[in-house]
Structures are given as C-alpha cells and as structure tokens.
C-alpha cells in the first residue's frame, strides 16, 4: 500500500494529499452549519433541529433517538435539499459572474489549507516534524495573500446580481475586508519579530511558530496568547471581520439588506457561500491556534514531545509515529473546533454593529492599537534579544 503510494508520480501524490484534506474540510464546513443551528438553539433556550431521521436509524433502540435529538441527520437532509432543489438564475443578472462568485468563494478557503500545518509526529531521531501539505518558508504570508482574494467573490456576487441590496452588500464587504486586513497583518508582526531571533534565517513559517512555543523553560513554553494578549485580541477581532462573521456581517445584514450579497442566490450556489464562510472560519481558527494557542501542544508548558514520551511509556504501540500524529491532529482539531464554538457563541450573544461603527472601530481603534502594540514589542524584543 505504502510502496504503491510512493511509486506514484509526485504530482499525483500531491493531488491525493490535497484531496484528502479537502475531504475533511468540506464536511466539517457542513457539520459546522448544523452545529451553528444547535448552538444558537442552546443559547436561546430552545430544542433546535431534532426531527429528521432515516427510518432504519429509528429502529436502533437508544442511539437512533439520541442522534435524532442531536439533529445530526439535518446535515444530510439540508445538503440533499440544496443539491436537488431547483437552482434558478434570475433574468436580470450577469450570468458569468453570478455563477463564478460562489466558486470563487470556495477557492481561497480550500487553497490556503495547503500552507497550514495541522499536526506533528516524532521521526526516527525523536525530532518533532510538522504534518502539512506544504511547509513553505513564507507560510503565513501565503495564507494572507490567498485569503485576501476572497473579497472578489463578495464583490462579484453583489455586482453580478444587478439589484440594489446585493450591490450595497458587495460594496460594504469590499470596504470592510480591505480595512481590517491592515490590523490583521499588523497584529501578527510581533509574533514573527519574536520568532525570528537575530542570527537565524528569516522565516514566516507557521510550523516554526509552534516549534517556538514548545521550547523548555518558562518563557519558551509559554503560548503567545499569554505573551502577546493584545496582538491576539486584535487578530481575533480582525478575523471576525475578515470572515464576515457576526457582529461584523455587514455584507449580509438581513435587517437592512435582506440577505446582502447573496440575496439573489438559491439552492447549492447559496450553500457554497455558506460552506465557504465556515471553511474560512476553519482556516482562520487554525492560523489563530498555530500563532497564539500553541498549535498541537496539548497545554502551555507541556509540549507534544513530552506527551509522546508518556504515551510511549504507557504502551510501545502508542509511541508509534502514526499514533503520535493522530494524537497531535486530535489536539489541534479540538482547539480549532473550540475556537469555532467561540465564533458561534459571539454570534448569538452580541448584537450586530452599525456600518459606521465597524469603520470607526477598524480605522480609529484597532489600527492604532495594532501599531502601538507593534512598537511596544519592537522595543521590548530589541531589549530582550540583544
């Protein structure tokens, strides 16, 4: 099996790896939409979706009822509905861009995954080696660059719909995404100033950031969220704005814009926008986890290598690289999903901002805060690392 895989040409290997990761991201996006409904119901004190169940599952005595209450089958019911219902294209739209926009929404989300490492294993020499599709030297820059292309799907969807509310949604989205990109980029600079100690080769690799958070010692094992809380806060808020999440979902504010940029969309094209939003959240949460929450290290000051040692002492099979890899991926995914829960929690707790508040917050509060934060850490790191 492994021999057969290794003798494939590298292009096919890369394609297979990419497909494997997409096969994980896409369903998680779908399940997240379900989780959102369930979390909202939980926060608002109502049962939420709890009806759909295929007949043969209803025959299972205890588990069937439990899964029905959990609303798990609504994912499949909703997905099937969106795939098979009629997919109308209104007569007044620009057809090419109207169809292109939902596709463009998915593309950056699935492309950025290639540069995000999602786990690690111990190789034969006991070195922690990151797992990921491509561990490139400019990691985070690549994520930001490709993610910034996501704005086109919103602009084009708004423009191609050729009606008033989608257009306003598209215009709002483009202004908002460009504004918050500044504070997003500025807020991560202290992290890389700290990671790129003098004398080392300059890197923006995300795996290197995690490596830096798993060093021995008090300062070495500290997650960056404790070391740079303001940077983490600015990054988090900008992430909310960049993924168009509530309280920043100006582009689709249904109270004033009907549905915003996706007013004219229906069926699976609308579903693609929806899944793309969750895929963006997934990638954003993954980057936040890597930068500020220690990546695949289970706890602050407890790196993965230590846990691997404990596991190996427990049972030799648990020390196998594959077992360690699975454990690291599980830890990483748990953190990412917890962050996504945080996204939902905020959505159902805080009311939406007004558009002028969004702009004022981005330019007059977050940007100066990010710059002040950068200057502070520049001075502090220059003194510490001299």
């Amino acid at each position, binding site marked *: 099996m492994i021999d057969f895989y290794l003798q494939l040409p590298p292009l096919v290997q890369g394609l297979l790896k990419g497909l494997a990761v997409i096969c994980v991201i896409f369903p998680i996006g779908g399940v997240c939409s379900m989780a959102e409904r369930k979390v909202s119901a939980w926060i608002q004190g109502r049962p939420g979706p709890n009806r759909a169940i295929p007949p043969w599952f209803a025959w299972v005595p205890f588990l069937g009822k439990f899964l029905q209450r959990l609303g798990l089958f609504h994912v499949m019911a909703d997905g099937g509905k969106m795939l098979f219902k009629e997919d109308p294209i209104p007569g007044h739209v620009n057809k090419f861009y109207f169809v292109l926009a939902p596709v463009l929404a998915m593309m950056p989300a699935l492309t950025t995954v290639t540069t995000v490492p999602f786990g690690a294993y111990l190789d034969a020499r006991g070195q922690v080696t990151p797992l990921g599709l491509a561990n490139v030297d400019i990691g985070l820059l690549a994520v930001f660059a490709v993610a910034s292309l996501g704005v086109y799907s919103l602009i084009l969807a708004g423009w191609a719909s050729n009606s008033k509310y989608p257009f306003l949604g598209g215009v709002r989205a483009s202004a908002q995404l460009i504004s918050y990109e500044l504070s997003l980029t500025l807020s991560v600079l202290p992290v890389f100033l700290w990671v790129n100690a003098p004398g080392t080769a*300059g890197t923006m690799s995300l795996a290197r950031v995690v490596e830096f958070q798993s060093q021995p010692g008090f300062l070495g094992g500290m997650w960056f969220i404790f070391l740079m809380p303001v940077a983490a806060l600015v990054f988090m808020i900008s992430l909310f704005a960049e993924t168009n999440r509530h309280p920043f979902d100006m582009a689709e504010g249904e109270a004033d814009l009907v549905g915003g940029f996706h007013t004219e969309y229906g069926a699976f094209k609308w579903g693609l926008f929806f899944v793309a939003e969750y895929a963006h959240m997934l990638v954003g949460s993954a980057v936040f986890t890597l930068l500020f929450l220690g990546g695949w290290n289970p706890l602050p000051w407890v790196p993965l290598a230590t846990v691997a040692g404990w596991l190996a002492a427990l049972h030799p099979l648990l020390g196998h690289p594959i077992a360690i890899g699975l454990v690291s991926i599980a830890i990483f995914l748990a953190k990412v999903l917890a962050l996504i829960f945080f996204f939902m929690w905020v959505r159902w707790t805080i009311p939406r901002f007004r558009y002028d508040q969004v702009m004022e917050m981005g330019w007059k509060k977050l940007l100066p805060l990010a710059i002040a934060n950068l200057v502070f850490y520049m001075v502090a790191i220059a003194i510490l690392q001299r």
Partner: protein
Amino acid sequence: MNLPSLLFSGFLILTLVSALGVVLNRNAVNAAMCLLLCLVGVAGLFVALDAYLLAFLLLLVYAGAIVALFLFIVMLLDARGDARPSLHRLPLAARVVAGLLVLAGVASFLLRGRLPSPEVAALPAAGAALKPYAYQLFTTYLLPVQILGFLLLIAMIGVIVLSRKFVPIEEGS
C-alpha cells in the same frame, strides 16, 4: 517538456492573454477581472522563477487590495463600457505619439531585452526569501522606499484636504 517549464509557459500564456483582455475589454468590470488574472499569472511566473516572496507580495498587495479597490470604484461610479471614448476620436498627434511610444518599447525590448549572461541569471533572486529582500529594502533601496512613502503621505493628505467639506464660518455666530 518537464513540469516547471510547462507551468511557466502556461502562466506566460495566461498573463499575456489576460493582459490583452485588460486593454481590449469595453466593460470596465471585465477589464478589472482580467487585470486580476494577469496579476495571478505574473505571480505564477515569479513562483516558477523561485521568487516566492515576490509572488505572494504581489498577490497580497495588488491582487488582494488594489484591484479590489479598482472594482469598488468602478462599481461606485457604475462605469459602463460604452461610455468610454472610442479611439477614432483622439487627435492625430496623440495617436502618432502613442504609436511611436509602443514602437520604441517593442524595439528596445527586441534589441536589449535579454539577460546579459548566464552568470547573472544563476544568481539567487533577491525576492526568494525574506531576509535578503528585507536587507535590500533597508540598504540599497532605502532612499526610494522613503521617497515613495512620503509621496504616498502627500497623496493621502491631499485626498483628505480635497474631499473635506469646509464650512464657512458665518459672521456673528
């Protein structure tokens, strides 16, 4: 033909075709989208030349922000393609000058547009990694960077002054 050179040719064709699309399209939104494709093609060329940093900076700054702003403006002004003046109404002098400029550009490209020697081509690209790039910015190109920064600052202040509504102070109030 191996994969890298195949990719290079692919991105080359993409860049050229979409660049033509920018110039020839009558619809401003189509032109902006062609510009976006063209920039993506150039970024692909940079990747094929091992200048990864330049490729992603190009995507981040130009494709991610500047073309988005272009589109934003095009949509705000609701510019239609048919509002553009046709080429035939340009004065003769302008046409001659434009033609001469294009000719001069093509001629200089044909005469001198090749790398002088293989040694130069074999040098590591300054845009390949973070450190050499930053080093160049803070040493060789420090003055241009500063001057450009000031130019942008002047432009920004100019925009603020121009777009601000000055309310005349009424006498006696």
